[in-house]
């Protein structure tokens, strides 16, 4: 047995590949790094992902790093996670690439879910995955010069290179299939809340195929975080990656650093994080359900969803000082404590929410026209969900029994009881059902957490975080698994930070769900994925809701839209 392979699954991989696994390193309690030759990457990764008896295995993230200043080489790591009760295991398959020869066999032909990751390292680091079916630019804009790789260490974050580009040199969109026309959707479209460009190839109203382009909002915050910001500062940037699931990113980042630095988070802080994460899930899910109704032309349910959601925002404001972007998470714990007398407020809000949301679900699902629009629309098969490594409600509605909170418990989830709703239908209705059930589960989780909330400190005391430590942090965000990879650096800064938001794994599967539907359903299907472009593209967003409160007086808002108390 190879030294370090002290877990059943890791051992099996090592036994299967023998000598070709050069080194095994257990970098955390549930994380193993297997070092292989670059030519073996494809085989090892596809072996783990496609093992039938390991069920819900998936590609959780993939990181490319310019390790030339430390080791003189580039590195790539494919992080695979085992889910669905298979065990709390993350396996990283790592290989080094020499600068003279940055090509290696692509994993995409074996597992399409690797496609975006490989396009990204191709864009940002100049790594060449061989046999990749589609190496068009993913992240970089059209006016970025060829051969300049922003994530390389010799590229300074202040540089802003440009190139002139001509009409012929524009982004190579796919040609529409014979007999179809292009129906462009976005980058600006009323039903898309953020910029994303879809080219629907339609015959009449039927969608035959789809091409898309994203990353209009890429701002390179990973680059800024490396070397320029301290560990604690990055925490606040991480929270601002998303206007909806900021807390998830902040917790995922903090957990990665804590794992790397061996920091023990006080129990009370873990509970506070849990409560904030679930509050975030509540308002995110209700928002998405409301938007689904809006896209189906059912504005009454949309308005009521926002009315019901508003008290959750107020609750967050009372607990943390902010409706959104709570600023509650620090490496090592939480920044502010919950005041005990707020407990009553939380309970009251939740009780009311439970009743109102129950009513909302009942009345929405008894609206025949709405159900007609959702049933059997935008079906994503289990096979497709698996081959794209889809996550979150999008995957659970297609029968993937995965949930990071249960499969890889973090914060206080180990102590809490909750169900993971899974549906088989894979249509828009199933996604709505998953989200609706998760809202009730979240309420139940918060109630338990409040009951069991331990006392004590909220911030761990730690001195120094050692350099060159690698670790993953992961959170079940409202849209699915968020994974942050960190490699620590010198002088209280990161060497490498890789953010992988849930939508990053879901987006590539969208064409499969769109094909065969009509353009009438396209916005609804896209919304049912609950896409979060800004997370995926990693930038800072200002939440529209927060912006608005500063403009409109609160009493006006209250008078205008709600009858709370």
């Amino acid at each position, binding site marked *: 047995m190879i030294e370090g392979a002290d877990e059943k699954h890791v051992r099996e991989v090592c036994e299967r590949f023998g000598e070709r696994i050069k080194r095994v390193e257990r970098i955390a309690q549930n994380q193993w790094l297997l070092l292989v030759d670059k030519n073996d990457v494809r085989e090892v990764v596809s072996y783990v992902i496609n093992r039938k008896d390991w069920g819900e295995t998936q590609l959780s993230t993939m990181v490319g790093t310019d390790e030339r200043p430390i080791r003189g080489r580039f590195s790539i790591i494919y992080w695979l996670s085992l889910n669905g009760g298979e065990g709390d295991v993350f396996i990283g398959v790592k290989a080094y690439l020499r600068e003279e020869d940055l090509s290696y066999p692509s994993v995409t032909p074996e597992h399409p879910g690797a496609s975006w990751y490989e396009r990204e390292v191709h864009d940002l680091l100049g790594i060449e995955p061989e046999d990749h079916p589609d190496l068009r630019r993913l992240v970089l804009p059209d006016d970025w010069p060829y051969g300049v790789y922003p994530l390389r260490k010799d590229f300074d974050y202040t540089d802003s290179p440009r190139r002139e580009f001509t009409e012929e040199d524009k982004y190579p969109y796919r040609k529409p299939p014979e007999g179809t026309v292009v129906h462009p959707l976005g980058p600006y479209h009323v039903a898309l809340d953020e910029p994303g460009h879809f080219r629907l190839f339609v015959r009449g109203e039927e969608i035959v195929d789809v091409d898309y382009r994203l990353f209009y909002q890429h701002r390179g915050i990973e680059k800024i975080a490396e070397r320029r910001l301290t560990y604690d500062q990055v925490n606040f940037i991480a929270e601002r990656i998303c206007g909806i699931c900021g807390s998830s990113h902040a917790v995922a980042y903090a957990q990665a650093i804590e794992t790397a630095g061996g920091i023990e988070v006080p129990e009370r802080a873990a509970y506070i994080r849990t409560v904030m994460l679930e509050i975030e899930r509540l308002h995110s899910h209700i928002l998405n359900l409301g938007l689904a109704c809006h896209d189906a032309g059912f*504005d009454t349910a949309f308005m009521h969803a926002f009315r019901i959601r508003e008290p959750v925002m107020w609750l967050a404001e009372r607990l943390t000082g902010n409706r959104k972007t709570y600023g509650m998470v620090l490496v090592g714990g939480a920044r502010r404590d919950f005041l005990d007398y707020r407990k009553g407020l939380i309970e009251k809000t939740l009780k009311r929410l439970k009743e109102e949301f129950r009513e909302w679900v009942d009345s929405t699902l008894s609206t025949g026209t709405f159900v007609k629009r959702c049933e059997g629309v935008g079906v994503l098969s289990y096979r497709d969900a698996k081959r794209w490594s889809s996550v979150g409600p999008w995957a659970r509605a297609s029968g993937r029994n995965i949930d990071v909170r249960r499969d890889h418990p973090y914060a206080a989830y180990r102590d809490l009881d909750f169900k993971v709703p899974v549906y088989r239908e894979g249509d828009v209705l199933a996604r709505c059902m998953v989200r609706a059930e998760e809202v009730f589960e979240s309420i139940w989780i918060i109630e338990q957490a409040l009951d069991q909330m331990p006392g004590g400190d909220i911030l761990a005391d730690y001195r120094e975080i050692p350099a060159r430590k690698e670790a993953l942090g992961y959170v079940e965000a409202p849209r699915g698994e968020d994974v942050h990879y960190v490699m620590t650096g010198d002088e209280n800064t990161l060497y490498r930070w890789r953010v992988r938001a849930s939508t990053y794994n879901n987006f590539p599967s969208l064409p499969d769900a769109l094909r065969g539907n009509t*353009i009438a*359903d396209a916005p609804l299907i896209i919304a049912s994925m609950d896409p979060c472009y800004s997370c995926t593209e990693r930038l800072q967003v200002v939440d529209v809701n927060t912006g608005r409160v500063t403009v409109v007086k609160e009493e006006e808002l209250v008078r205008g839209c709600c009858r709370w108390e």
Partner: protein
Amino acid sequence: MALWEIIVPVSLVLTIAPILDGMGRKVKAKVQMRQGPPILQTWYDLTSLLSMEPILPTDGLSFRLAPYVALASAVAAATVLPYGGLSPLRFSGDFFVFLYVVAMVSIAYIVAGFSLPNTYTNAGANREMMMVLSIEPVLGVAIGILAINSHSLCLSYMPLHLHASPSIFLAIGLLAYAVYVEGGFVPFDAAEAETEILEGTLCEYSGRLLGVFKWALMVKRFVLLWLLGSFIVLPLTKGFPGWAVFLLQLTAVLAIYFAVVTVEAHNARLRIDQAIRMNTKVFLASLVVLLIASLGW
């Protein structure tokens, strides 16, 4: 016939239609537990649109003319309807003219939508076409039954000479359905769906032209509701003074409109194929009613 007999009803229709829309917005807001905009908001929107220069995406004449054709057709439809004791352009056979000019509004919408190389306007035009083709027959059959029953082809004469029979009640029901669908109310608003196709044909319109087009669609809705209201009120108010009949008509239209808006607020939009399937079923049912009516029941 005096000129005022035309000018008064026409300006009344042009004025009331946007106010009615404003009231609908208010009712919807109440259902949604919002405060909603003031009742005159649609008028404010309209006046500001009418004062703005449009941006033209094409030099085509059909694109520029379509809103005016639509408005003119909708107004023309209004002139053959009875307003209390007054019916501006009544003549035998105006029933056909009514059907024709109501369809003209949609045809203007369709022509405008197809006049541009834009998949959104094309989709809107396409949907409107399918919608019109599937609902106009129902409207025609419904009024046809009423014509058979009253032995008249004049819209202001018909309601006064109906005799009660089962087919009449069914025909009024069919008329209500046709008015609802033809008016483009949710769930039958696929042709102007904002979240799906950016309001279809209207997405390329702006400024004055957009204002005129929206006005035309509002007048069309009002005219359709007035037709339905008249068929309900006039048979019951024979012998009433003209002003009383008019007020009752107005009340009936308001009541119908509020009911329509409430139904609207409680529904999602049907996809065009689903809407067509429903219209087809109703059309088949209307043929059965026509058969009953022709047997004299």
